[in-house]
């Protein structure tokens, strides 16, 4: 294992630099020296500037950007999300949709099991020549004017001063009004707790300086998350340069903090 290894070593650096230029979850940027075997060295932070400081409730600004041009429909995000929160089958905090377009501009959309199994096979129920296809991940849009918060009768769902829309599981009465009010269908009623649930952009991880699980596991960098107060973050750069970023259902007036890069006009 002599010569080829050294070659690999040199190529490795070039490789890392090249691939990391793309949009990759920040976790792999920080590979710190490891103790040999045993013990948890603690997890290196993925969002700089959060650890070691008291959490400023009032001046946080986070953004989530989904890059449609990089999503391959692997479903890692759905799997990781379900495992992190023990989401019951048939309900989805996040899901991935597949869009197919034929030569007559007819659009076919599907999301088998929310994309949890990845997309293992092409659609068997359509018999047309497919012109174009793409995947669209969906999750909570973390609206700046959330209609779900507006309609909750008991204050069980609310917008925190740091911009996250959360659910108070101890207060929710399970009336499902918020589920009716969400234009993005991001919410559901958990059959086990009988309260409302939704994607929280992994608030519990972000508070500790980690990325949301779906962002962490995305192998292609289709999901990006970052701190807008950090001018070096990828999301800040995307939002302040000449990138075309759009939101879903803009006419609803919800002002989402979830942006899409490369979103196609067929997506609702």
């Amino acid at each position, binding site marked *: 294992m002599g010569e080829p290894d050294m070659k690999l070593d040199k190529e490795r650096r070039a490789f890392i630099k090249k691939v990391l230029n793309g949009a990759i979850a920040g976790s792999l940027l920080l590979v710190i020296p490891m103790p040999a075997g045993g013990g948890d060295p603690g997890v290196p932070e993925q969002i700089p500037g959060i650890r070691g400081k008291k959490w400023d409730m009032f001046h946080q600004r986070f953004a989530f950007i989904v890059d449609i041009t990089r999503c391959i429909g692997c479903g890692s995000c759905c799997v990781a999300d379900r495992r992190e929160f023990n989401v019951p089958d*048939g*309900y*989805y905090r996040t*899901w991935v*949709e597949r869009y197919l377009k034929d030569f007559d501009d*007819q*659009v*076919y*959309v*599907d*999301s088998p*099991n*929310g994309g949890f199994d990845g997309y293992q096979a092409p*659609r068997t*129920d*359509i018999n047309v020549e497919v012109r174009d296809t793409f995947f669209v991940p*969906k999750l909570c849009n973390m609206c700046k004017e959330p*209609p779900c*918060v*507006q*309609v*909750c*009768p*008991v*204050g*069980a769902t609310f917008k925190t001063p740091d911009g996250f829309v959360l659910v108070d599981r101890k*207060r*929710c*009465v*399970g*009336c*499902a*009004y918020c*589920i*009716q*009010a*969400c*234009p*993005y*269908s*991001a*919410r*559901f*009623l958990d059959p086990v*707790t*009988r*309260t409302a649930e939704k994607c929280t952009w992994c608030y519990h991880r972000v508070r500790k300086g980690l990325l949301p699980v779906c962002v962490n596991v995305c192998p292609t960098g289709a999901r990006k998350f970052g701190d807008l107060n950090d001018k070096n973050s990828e999301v800040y750069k995307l939002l302040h340069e000449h990138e075309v970023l759009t939101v879903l259902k803009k*006419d*609803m*007036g919800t002002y989402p903090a979830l942006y899409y890069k490369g979103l196609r006009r067929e997506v*609702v």
Partner: protein
Amino acid sequence: MDALNYVFPNDLHVHWSMMIVLYPYLTGLVDGSFIVAALYYVFGVKSLKPISRFSLVFALAFLSCAMFPLLMHLGRPERNHNMMITPSPTSAMSGAGYIYTVAIVLIALIVLLVYRPVLVKRRQESKGILKVLYRVLTMDSTNLSPESLELDRKIIKFLVAIGIPVATILHGYVGFLFGGVKANPSWSTPLMPVIFLFSACVSGISALVLAYIVIKKIRKQPVDTACVRTCINILAGFFILAFSFEMLEVFSHSYLRTWYHHSVEGLLNGPLFYSFWVWQVGICSVLPVFLLGWLCLFPTKETVFKFFAAAVSFILLLQVLLMRWNVVIGGQLMSKSTRGYTQFHPEWFDKEGILTVMVLVSLPFIVLFILSRIFPLWLDEGNVSA
């Protein structure tokens, strides 16, 4: 399923099912019967006297059972008091607890004051626990002097008068609850509170007419036809308003053809074709328009009139139920993807299932029966003047 049909993964399940169809229906019946009481006690429509008391007790019986469908629906009914402890300032639903409390206290007070002479007499004639009951219900007062009756009359008129806006809000807020959901294109319209309110009045008056005719038939007692005629006239007025607004909603959207319209159009012409166009509009709206027109405008023999008055009331009760079904459940069949529709399968033994519906619909009648033992429904029983 159709390859073009796409429903968001979280939209497959219909969250607001038959319990949420039942709740507006029950409060609607309350509203309608209260309108009849208001027409007599505030606006002095004398021909409604025979059912004036019946309408009040009917409203009370139904209002007392109105919260049960909601409690059956909530995922966490044991926390329902949260709505009154920490109501959200922006949520229509959080007003429910307060409005309901005000409404039921108001109607209970009106009933107690209207029936006070009867109750005082019964207190004096009964013994034991019933006597205690009547003492409580009469606030332990036996004063039936002309001054007290005059005071009662004025207060009743005042309470019924403020009861009109209370009843309006009681059902209007339900309409706004739906009308304020911008995410659902078949619900979000400013006309929703108006439609709900007018159809509530229709259902309440129809229920009173049908119940009046049926109860009197069972007891082999005569029906005051002039009273029924007045009710049918009022019913016709409210129904024309309700139907016009319902159709205005559909037709103006189908004319404007804005972005979400194709989803609603697909719903009404697809999954809801039979329940909306054939049943709600065709059989249960267009037909009653003609029936009501005939009953109101042309002279008819009394027996014929009574039969068709009961028939049209029954059809209108069905119409209002279908309208609630098509709005609540129909509206949720549309996925927010605007590309498809899901399905609703009513269960028999679910907490919100068919059996529960049957129990909760029978409950107000049982309460009405119990109340009728304390508050005689008809003026010829208990023989006191109103």
